[in-house]
């Protein structure tokens, strides 16, 4: 137990983190690939077509995991930011800021796959469906965090300011979600949009969980890779970086 705690504390040191991130990101990517491959194969070829939506419902297997990732990554970003603000740990600042572009990417995928799914369902490429609208606002929150981080020159202040914004964003996100749901319901009288089967048949669960786990593993690999790069950039003048330069990337 003690050694685990000690290892955890050691990870806060930039050179230790660099070594961990190098191995860790490779491991997570390698673990993610078979899970994702199996999930994609199951989703595309094994699961039978939905009796209402035909094959288009297969988009669910990329849309839903991406949506869950977009929210999960935002929450994780806010958590890292909170730790970084309270305990002033450099590595946590780096991790928080590395989450942002990945989360924004998943949000974008959610919006695009949602739009592509909506085309055969609603007949238009875009509908102000409350869930999609909230995802769009979430995308802007991500852009705000990234934009603020890039606008301030001093890296540590930038990470802390963007981190504070992320924390405020995560606190307000349920409020935004609730208000957009209320706004969507103001115009009652329209049929409830079908956006996926309301209950998941057992045969559909496996590919979904595979995709959910696969995207999380992929995210872990990507996060460590980006965090490692940011960490190296920040610490460029230090001795340990000079020593690490000799090793392969």
């Amino acid at each position: 137990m003690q050694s685990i705690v000690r290892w955890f504390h050691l990870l806060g040191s930039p050179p230790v983190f660099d070594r961990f991130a190098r191995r860790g990101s490779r491991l997570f990517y390698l673990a993610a690939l078979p899970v994702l491959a199996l999930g994609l194969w199951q989703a595309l070829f094994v699961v039978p077509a939905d009796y209402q939506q035909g094959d288009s419902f297969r988009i669910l297997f990329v849309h839903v995991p991406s949506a869950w990732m977009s929210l999960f990554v935002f929450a994780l970003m806010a958590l890292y930011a909170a730790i970084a603000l309270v305990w002033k740990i450099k590595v946590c600042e780096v991790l928080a800021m590395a989450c942002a572009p990945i989360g924004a990417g998943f949000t974008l995928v959610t919006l695009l796959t949602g739009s592509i799914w909506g085309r055969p369902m609603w007949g238009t490429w875009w509908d102000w469906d409350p869930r999609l609208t909230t995802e769009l606002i979430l995308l802007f929150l991500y852009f705000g965090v990234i934009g603020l981080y890039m606008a301030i020159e001093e890296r540590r202040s930038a990470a802390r300011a963007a981190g504070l914004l992320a924390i405020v964003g995560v606190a307000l996100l349920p409020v935004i979600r609730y208000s957009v749901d209320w706004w969507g319901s103001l115009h009652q009288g329209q049929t409830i949009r079908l956006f996926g089967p309301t209950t998941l048949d057992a045969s559909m669960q496996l590919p979904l969980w595979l995709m959910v786990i696969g995207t999380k593993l992929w995210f872990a690999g990507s996060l460590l890779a980006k965090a490692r790069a940011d960490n190296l950039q920040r610490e460029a003048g230090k001795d340990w970086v000079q020593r690490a330069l000799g090793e392969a990337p």
Partner: protein
Amino acid sequence: MTYLGYVVAAYAVFVALLVVDVIGSRLRLRRALRDAGQRQQRADARRRAATQPPSLELER
């Protein structure tokens, strides 16, 4: 109604994100390492220049 195009498009978007993400991380890492290497070279050059005796000639 055939949904093939839509399904392919959606999955392509998803895979594209993963690929772009990996490539982006790789590029970032390579740039960070390259910048650190150049910084090291500049520091070495400065150290070497400092150990040489100062030239008494005016260099234009």
